[in-house]
């Protein structure tokens, strides 16, 4: 739930990058951290294992500066989090998702990862409904089809068929990406930021 502090004129929003393990969630945050101007970001905080797999979460605070018309200016801050993708960390994902205002679902485009993508998306739906107590269909979600540079990837249409089926009419925006080179990363961030703001 976004926090609007009228006394300090601040708005805080929480965005969580969710998805299967090794899908590129941390790479998204690392790229954003390299691209955003120094004055607009804090330190990238990672709670990871010795092998650099996310253990609890990564955290990147972004400060968008003072925004709005003269008499209604607010300092806007986005807090970006990732969850650990590995299956055994389901409870940890639930904990990080607490209070989220929007989610970027980072899917792995490789054909053999489709099942993992689907499982993770189902778990997300369950978490939003049961643990956050929100309507999944109305919750701000952006899809990112990552790893588009690899050879064995499903087509965008195939990914849509499984993760964003037209029959479900979810209408999620989706962005192809190569997170470690940065392709599509900022477009995804822009899309989720605007979506979250539109729901404030």
């Amino acid at each position: 739930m976004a926090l609007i502090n009228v006394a300090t004129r601040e708005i805080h929003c929480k965005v969580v990058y969710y998805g299967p393990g090794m899908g590129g969630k941390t790479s998204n945050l690392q790229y954003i951290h390299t691209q955003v101007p120094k004055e607009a970001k804090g330190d990238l905080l990672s709670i990871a294992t010795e092998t650099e797999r996310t253990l609890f979460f990564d955290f990147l605070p972004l400060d968008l500066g003072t925004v709005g018309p003269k008499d209604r200016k607010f300092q806007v801050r986005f807090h970006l989090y990732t969850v650990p993708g590995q299956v055994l960390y389901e409870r940890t994902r639930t904990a990080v998702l607490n209070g989220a205002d929007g989610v970027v679902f980072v899917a792995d485009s490789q054909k053999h990862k489709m099942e993992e993508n689907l499982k993770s998306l189902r778990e997300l739906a369950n978490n939003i409904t049961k643990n956050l107590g929100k309507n999944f269909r109305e919750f701000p979600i952006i899809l990112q089809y990552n790893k588009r540079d690899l050879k064995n990837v499903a087509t965008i249409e195939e990914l849509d068929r499984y993760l964003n089926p037209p029959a479900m009419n979810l209408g999620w925006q989706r962005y192809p990406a190569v997170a470690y080179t940065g392709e599509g990363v900022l477009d995804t961030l822009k899309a989720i930021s605007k979506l979250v703001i539109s729901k404030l």
Partner: protein
Amino acid sequence: MDPQLTSQIVPIEEIRQIEECLARLVEDTSGNYVLLLDKSGQVIASQGDANRQDITALGALIAGTFASSREVAKLLREKDFRSMFTQGVRDNIFLALVEDQWILCIIFNKGTHIGLVKVLTKKATDALAQVLERVRETHKAREDVLGSSFRTSMEDTIDLLFRD
């Protein structure tokens, strides 16, 4: 609070009351620092050592440990862990829930007895629960606070800041 609401708006008067409550807690416990967080990790107010630069990260980590403890509680079939105590060599941290929405965090050193911190924190969380109740009651229509021109101007800022 209605779970479908996307924003929690804390008005000026309520922030003043929160800050007063936190300042009293710092003074009475000789604590170094007191923070009030939303369960999502966002800092609502703080009092004490004014030079702290790491409040944002501190808020995210503390809310993370509390959210994690909630999952542990579920596994143990415990309803909730309402408070947590972390003991360090120099500093200690005591955390307590304000209803299910906010987390009160106090950082204090060896000179202060944990028993005193617990008693005074309980008093503070009761007072803060009343403020939280008022925040819920006086939840204004969002257009009152933000306005539609805010969103347009926000979108322009996002385009400008997040570009390759």
